[in-house]
């Protein structure tokens, strides 16, 4: 055997409340943490200083030194100026807690490409020669010693164990890791996991058989934060259909009749009449009904209590998914806090992956500006917390540049319109790359356009959920799917009369206008504002300098798997196929077929599957559709565990829902 020189490669791994998982690879030598362009990783967190801390790696010694940061550097809960870090130590900067993880580099085995029984091509390591000596790391100087490796901390899965495709549950237990076996394991813990678990529950699966790994106490935790940041407070209406009910798979009674009923009981007959007219006439005669976010969240709370959600959720962060030697699929999760490091694992024959959007999107020129000028107050993403903008505008007035013409932009305009009542000196410049000439067309139909907005009640044409386009998409091949998504997709906003009125008013009164061109760069001005330099193609060339107090990026979220360490590792480890959009490839029943392991199967849902069999994957009803298909797939694979939710049995379950009784 060739002698391998082993070194430990260290990583910092953690979870940010908005951007999701953070994974920083530390190089030998100096690693700067902070918002400086030279930093090894930058964090979307206003509490992180530009040059926050320096991490030095020398051989197996890792040290951290605080660089006079504003909010300090903490190791295992204590503020430090300098400290040595050991594996498992928790480093906190700003809101972010990162765990130091070591990885042995010399232990990488050679791989071979094999074709599995179902035709999937996989990369697997060559079997390890049991007689070979094994390279391990003693922490300081690398050397060759005999197997087995030194015992790791109890209850913690050693990082090098994750370098294998198959992990033994028994072996995990032997090092004190809590391995729970159950029928169904969900990963994510958000709305996607919730509607899946809810469907299982009403299909006769007991709560004890389901475990969902998540970070949120409530299934809508992250969703609600993104709503609030993008200016959807509880009384505002979501862009969701009346009968897309994450708390009720039947969609009956839908949110509109429930609101009508509440209005009648509250004596508000005018509202009841208006809503009734709305659901009758929408969308031809009157704008489409959508539910208030607060009403949806309350309904989900009620359903969560009914199905025993608190007993289903396991607090933690999924770190890796592996095949288990016992023939199941295994999720290894971290439940570490600042004081203790602890891992646990859940093994199940069925796994459901619903991790949502891995990250926020920032337009490249805006990201560059933030890096270069260390300014996260004047240039923000609409999904980030940015109340400081409205506070300053209320006090002093000012100009805001909006980027993106979707529904988030509409919401921000509404918020700014409302703030204008407090301070009329607020102006909006809506910056577009080009003029919007006509709406998208598909077949004999065309999407409506007005004042630079393209209108559509929901984020996809309605037929994408359950109608003609759903069937078309399912039948299409990968390349056609991509084309269909382009035809049906694009940036749209809802045709709300109040929004149209606000824009028309703004155009008339001069506090709202559109500009066109490609942004070359952004720069701060001496008086604390920000200027966008735009090559103004519409005005016949030349450069336009647009000075504003704030720039708000309304272009959205990113679903590319690279942004999620969990997905990245999974795709890498099992050589999973990606679809034409680069997302996780799923079959028509949302199975990630490349993960099959004996009779164990993995399914996915949500934005990570866009480009697959369904267009509207990032919506309540789309999540329910994906859950329905996945549960149906699981039922066909194991009919003894799941009942078909249809006919009389479905009615019985529905009536239990109506009476608030457990399924």
């Amino acid at each position, binding site marked *: 055997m060739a002698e391998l020189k082993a070194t430990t490669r260290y990583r910092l791994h953690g979870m940010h409340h908005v951007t999701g998982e953070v994974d920083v690879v530390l190089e030998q030598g100096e690693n700067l943490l902070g918002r400086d362009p030279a930093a090894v990783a930058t964090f979307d967190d206003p509490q992180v200083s530009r040059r926050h801390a320096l991490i030095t790696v020398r051989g197996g010694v890792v040290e951290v030194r605080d660089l006079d940061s504003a909010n300090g550097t903490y190791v295992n809960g204590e503020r430090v100026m300098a400290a040595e870090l050991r594996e498992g130590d928790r480093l906190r900067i700003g809101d972010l807690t990162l765990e130091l993880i070591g990885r042995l580099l010399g232990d990488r085995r050679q791989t071979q490409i094999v074709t599995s029984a179902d035709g999937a091509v996989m990369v697997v390591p060559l079997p390890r020669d049991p007689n070979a000596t094994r390279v391990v790391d003693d922490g300081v100087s690398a050397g060759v010693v005999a197997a087995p490796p030194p015992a790791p901390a109890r209850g913690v899965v050693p990082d090098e164990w994750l370098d294998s495709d198959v992990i033994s549950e028994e072996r995990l237990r032997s090092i004190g890791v809590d391995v729970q076996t159950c029928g169904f394991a969900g990963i994510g813990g958000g709305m996607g996991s919730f509607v899946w678990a809810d469907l299982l529950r009403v299909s006769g699966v007991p709560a004890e058989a389901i475990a969902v790994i998540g970070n949120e106490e409530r299934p809508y935790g992250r969703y609600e934060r993104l709503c609030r940041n993008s200016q959807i407070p509880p009384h505002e209406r979501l862009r969701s259909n*009346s*009968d897309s009910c994450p708390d009720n*798979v*039947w*969609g*009956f*009674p*839908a949110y*509109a*009749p429930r609101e009508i009923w509440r209005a009648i009981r509250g004596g508000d007959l005018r509202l009841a009449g208006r809503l009734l007219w709305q*659901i*009758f*006439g*929408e*969308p*031809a*005669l009157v704008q489409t*009904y959508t539910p208030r976010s607060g009403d949806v969240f309350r309904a989900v709370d009620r359903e969560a209590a009914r199905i025993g959600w608190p007993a289903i959720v396991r607090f933690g962060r999924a770190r890796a998914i592996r095949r288990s030697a016992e023939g199941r699929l295994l999720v290894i999760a971290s439940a570490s806090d600042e004081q203790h490091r602890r891992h646990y694992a859940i093994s199940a024959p069925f796994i459901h992956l619903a991790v949502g959007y891995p990250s926020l999107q920032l337009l490249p020129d805006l990201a560059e500006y933030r890096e270069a000028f260390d300014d996260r107050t004047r240039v923000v993403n609409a999904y980030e917390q940015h109340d400081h903008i409205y506070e300053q505008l209320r006090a002093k007035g000012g100009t805001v540049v909006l980027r993106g013409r979707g529904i988030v932009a509409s919401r921000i305009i509404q918020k700014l319109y409302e703030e204008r009542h407090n301070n009329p000196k607020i102006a909006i410049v809506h910056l577009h790359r080009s003029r919007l000439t006509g*709406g998208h067309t*598909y*077949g*004999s*139909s*065309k*999407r*409506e356009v007005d004042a630079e907005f393209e209108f*559509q*009640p929901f984020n996809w*044409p*309605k*037929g994408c*959920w*359950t*109608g*003609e*386009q*759903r*069937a078309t998409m399912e039948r299409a091949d990968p390349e056609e799917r991509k084309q269909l998504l382009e035809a049906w997709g694009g940036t749209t906003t809802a045709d709300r009369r109040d929004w149209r009125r606000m824009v028309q008013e703004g155009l008339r009164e001069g506090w709202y206008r559109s500009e066109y061109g490609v942004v070359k760069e952004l720069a701060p001005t001496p008086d604390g504002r920000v200027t966008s330099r735009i090559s103004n193609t519409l005005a016949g060339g030349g450069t336009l300098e647009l000075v504003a107090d704030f720039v708000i990026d309304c272009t959205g979220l990113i679903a590319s798997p690279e942004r999620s360490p969990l997905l990245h590792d999974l795709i890498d480890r099992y050589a999973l196929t990606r679809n034409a959009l680069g997302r996780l490839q799923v079959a*028509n*029943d949302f199975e990630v077929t490349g993960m099959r392991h004996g009779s164990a199967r993995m399914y996915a849902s949500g934005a990570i599957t866009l480009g697959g069999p369904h267009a509207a994957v990032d919506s309540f009803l789309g999540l329910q*559709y994906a859950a*329905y*298909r996945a549960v*149906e797939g699981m039922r066909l694979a194991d009919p003894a565990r799941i009942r078909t*939710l*249809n*006919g*009389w049995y*479905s*009615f019985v379950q*529905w*009536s239990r829902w109506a009476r608030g009784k457990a399924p």
Partner: protein
Amino acid sequence: MVALGAGEGTVTPTLVGRWQTRLALLATIGLLITVIFVLGLRSDVFLRVLVYVAVFGFVWDVIYILIQRFRWDRDWPAAFQVLNGITEGVFLYAVIALGLLPFLPARDVAPGVFLAHYGLVWLAIFLWTQGPMRAFFPFWRFHGGRITPRT
């Protein structure tokens, strides 16, 4: 005649979904109401009217789907469903009154009784598809109104 659409409580229908839902609901809810009329008024003319509603419906559904193609959302609002109910009823009564239908002579069908029977069948099916249907068949809507899901 069968109320199918993307309005509150319904689905975004496909052609096969429209056909299947129409047939299934006429053969159940429609038949139930028709039997009451047949027994109450001791005349099987209502049964023949029901059959014609189904037969003409096959063609109406094709027309609706063609119109639907011009709608960006490929949906069918509740208001359209009400309109469909009226046009189908008026058309059916007109061809009966003109004596164009075999096995259904105009003299057998009094306008008042036709209105009561047709109106009730339509209303019952409309209300049923607005939500209660889904308590029994939750995934009916996920397949554009197909009773036999094809996945």
